[in-house]
């Protein structure tokens, strides 16, 4: 017996491995969050960081449904939005101080959002989780359209186009945070981001979390080990709705306003893109995706008006060439570097990077020249003091040569990889 006990613990990762793989990343994540305010960031940075935190929780909650549960949803923003709206109302109730709301700290609003999202998930999930696959996807699309339309009909809850707004500087202060200044809000967002990440990570380690993966892989078999796959999906859906609502609650405090846009197909599509670009097969994938896409959404438009085009290209490139997303690229790189021949791997990797950069350069020149030409304001693309008009031969040389060179180099890198 003692020998068996020995063996079964052998099967599981060692305590050291557990610490390295599980606890350490979270500690590092928390440490980074803790260190950020030390460098005295700007408002822009804070605002962006807050949005990233919210989107990290939102994208992770989406991945509970898509990556872990295998359910493609086009309406996940519904739970984000409904949770957020409830939190927004709660914010106003706290301001009024009526009933028990007078004694609720503003800091805990994301919990209200969680409840709202979970209840919405419970109600909407009831009919929709009976099905999986495309049926589920289409139901989610229809439900999202209906809820969005309803948002403009029921002003008392949704506040019409202008939405519901409130003031977060009310109620009891927790941890000495008034939540007024932006750097105080930072601690709020950081706290709840960490809570959300840990919560959802812990969820993957629970029996229900594992069963959700089992149901994704093989719903039929799940029935024969004693579980009802519909019920598994339903429970996971409620939990995912709850975490989406948590993100909604964070957003409520951060922006102090919620509008029906938050429920529409646009954020639902965006969260799908975030999760997928990040990598849905990895727990951390959506975190990467949320950070990158939030940045692109808010900052790329400063540099180019064609940012949506670049977003589309990025997305398609990921779907086509890196279906495991950014996380797949990162972990693939780490594996490669740790592999038998790191030098050669690194060489190929750098070569491929060079190829991609060259192609990107061709693309950027093409897009930027064309956009300006098409606008017809007589503006000209002038990177590094070059004057790249559409009638300038150099522009087209700069499009075609790098593009061809890039394609050639990447192809070579792939060939070498195959040979290796």
């Amino acid at each position, binding site marked *: 017996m003692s020998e068996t006990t020995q063996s079964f613990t052998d099967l599981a990762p060692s305590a050291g491995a557990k610490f390295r793989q599980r606890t350490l990343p979270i500690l590092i994540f928390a440490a980074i969050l803790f260190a950020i305010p030390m460098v005295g960031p*700007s*408002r*822009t940075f*804070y*605002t*962006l960081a807050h*949005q990233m935190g919210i989107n990290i929780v939102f994208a992770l909650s989406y991945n509970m449904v898509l990556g872990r549960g295998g359910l493609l949803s086009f309406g996940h923003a519904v739970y984000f939005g409904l949770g957020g709206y409830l939190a927004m109302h709660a914010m106003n109730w706290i301001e009024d101080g009526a009933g028990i709301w007078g004694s609720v700290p503003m800091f805990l609003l994301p919990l209200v959002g969680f409840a709202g999202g979970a209840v919405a998930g419970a109600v909407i999930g009831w009919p929709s989780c009976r099905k999986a696959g495309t049926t589920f996807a289409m139901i989610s699309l229809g439900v999202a359209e209906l809820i969005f*339309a309803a948002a*403009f*009909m029921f*002003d008392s809850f949704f506040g*019409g*186009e*202008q*939405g519901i*707004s409130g*003031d977060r500087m009310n109620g009891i202060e927790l941890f000495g945070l008034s939540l*007024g*200044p*932006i750097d105080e809000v930072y601690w709020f967002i950081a706290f709840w981001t960490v809570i959300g990440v840990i919560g959802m990570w812990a969820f993957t380690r629970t029996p229900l979390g594992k069963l959700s993966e089992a149901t994704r892989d093989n719903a039929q078999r799940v029935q024969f080990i004693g579980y009802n796959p519909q019920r598994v999906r339903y429970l996971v859906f409620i939990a995912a709705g709850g975490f989406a609502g948590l993100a909604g609650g964070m*957003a409520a405090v951060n*922006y*102090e*306003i919620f*509008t029906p*846009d*938050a429920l529409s197909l*646009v954020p639902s599509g965006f969260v799908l893109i975030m999760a997928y670009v990040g990598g849905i097969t990895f727990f951390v994938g959506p975190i990467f995706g949320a950070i990158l896409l939030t940045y692109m*959404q*808010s900052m790329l*438009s*400063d540099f180019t*008006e*064609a*940012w*949506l085009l670049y977003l589309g290209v990025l997305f398609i490139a990921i779907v086509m060439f890196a279906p495991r997303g950014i996380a797949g690229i990162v972990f693939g790189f780490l594996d490669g570097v740790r592999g038998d021949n790191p030098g050669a791997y690194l060489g190929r990797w750098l070569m491929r990077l060079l190829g991609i950069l060259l192609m990107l350069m061709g693309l950027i020149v093409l897009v930027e020249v064309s956009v300006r030409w098409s*606008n*017809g*304001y*007589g503006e000209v693309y002038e990177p590094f003091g070059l004057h790249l008009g559409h009638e300038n031969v150099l522009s087209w040389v700069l499009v075609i040569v790098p593009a061809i060179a890039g394609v050639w180099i990447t192809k070579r890198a792939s060939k070498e990889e195959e040979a290796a």
Partner: protein
Amino acid sequence: DTIKFAFIDPLSGPFGPSGEAAYTSYQLAAEHINENGGVNGDMIEIMGYDNKVNPKESLVQFQKAIDDGARYIVQGNGSSVAAALIEAVNKHNKRNPGDEVLFFNYAAVTPAFTNELCSFWHFRFDAHADMKMAAITDWIAERDDIKSVYLIGQDYVFGQAVASAAEGQLSEKRPDIEIVGNELHPLGKVKDFTPYIQKIISSGADAVITGNWGADMQLLMKAAAESGSEVPYLTFYGGSKGAVASLGEDGIGLLHQVSEGITNLEASDEQYALIEEYKERFPDYDYYYHRVWNVMDMFKKAAEEAGTNDPIPVAKALEGLSIEHAYGTATMRAEDHQIQQPLYISVVSDDVKYGVDNIDLGWELVDAGTISMDAAEQPTTCEMERPE
């Protein structure tokens, strides 16, 4: 030093063109001011921030703008965005004394912004919905041949407000006019407006009023033209980009709009030169946002009166300020920071000096289409809190 204006409006995506048309206007207006020595010797810089007409994204861009040193925010597309920005500006100014910013709203027309939601930090340079409706009803009231009116609009706060304003004002100005239909349809969801047009035709209405914008407006007008309807459609946003082109000849005599000025009004040579310069610089767009020049001119005048470019003195100087612009006098009402000015009702015509959308059709003033400032003026319920 430069005076930084943050232009927070859509610059990409489906609403990109609306933002772009205004953005280009601001840039040209700022260039002209800068060429003439700037404001109190400082140059104006217009910085564009793409908010994708999303309230939350607007707040992100707002923070960015403040980081970039902007003290003046301009925005116009979408009342939800304007509402979010008003709130955000109020809170920012309360939480960051000494760093105040002003919000110049050039196109978000929800009446509440200068009524119950009014704020010292917000100035509106466009007539609000009730004022535009007052202009429309004023014009209808003069037309004895109009005996029945049909109202159609989008089913949300703004559409509902337009409908109730129309009902209220018409019953006051012309109690004999019958409202033969009051239709609200979901926002941005209708693909084919033919059934609505059928309803309008069978109701026998003599005129239609709509606050529709965007695709809802264009598709409505297309369906109306297609069914051979000949009653006037009085719109708030008929002048928006592409609407005239998409209707073509069918729009003549059908599509009406209310605005603070059109290019085909009598004007000075300078104004004509400006219109032509704009068209040459930005061939995709037309000189439409006349009010942008009002914003910039009033700002310049106020800042120079105040002798500083700081927001609070400028705001105080703006209150009650009047300027003469190309198409009349504009006054910033001190009580609620709502501009007051004459309005014009115009209709699509093929006999015009300046066409729009790069075709020969353009806007022409209709008979008795000039609505005086007094006729358009509306009372306010604003109780404004002013800083010391």
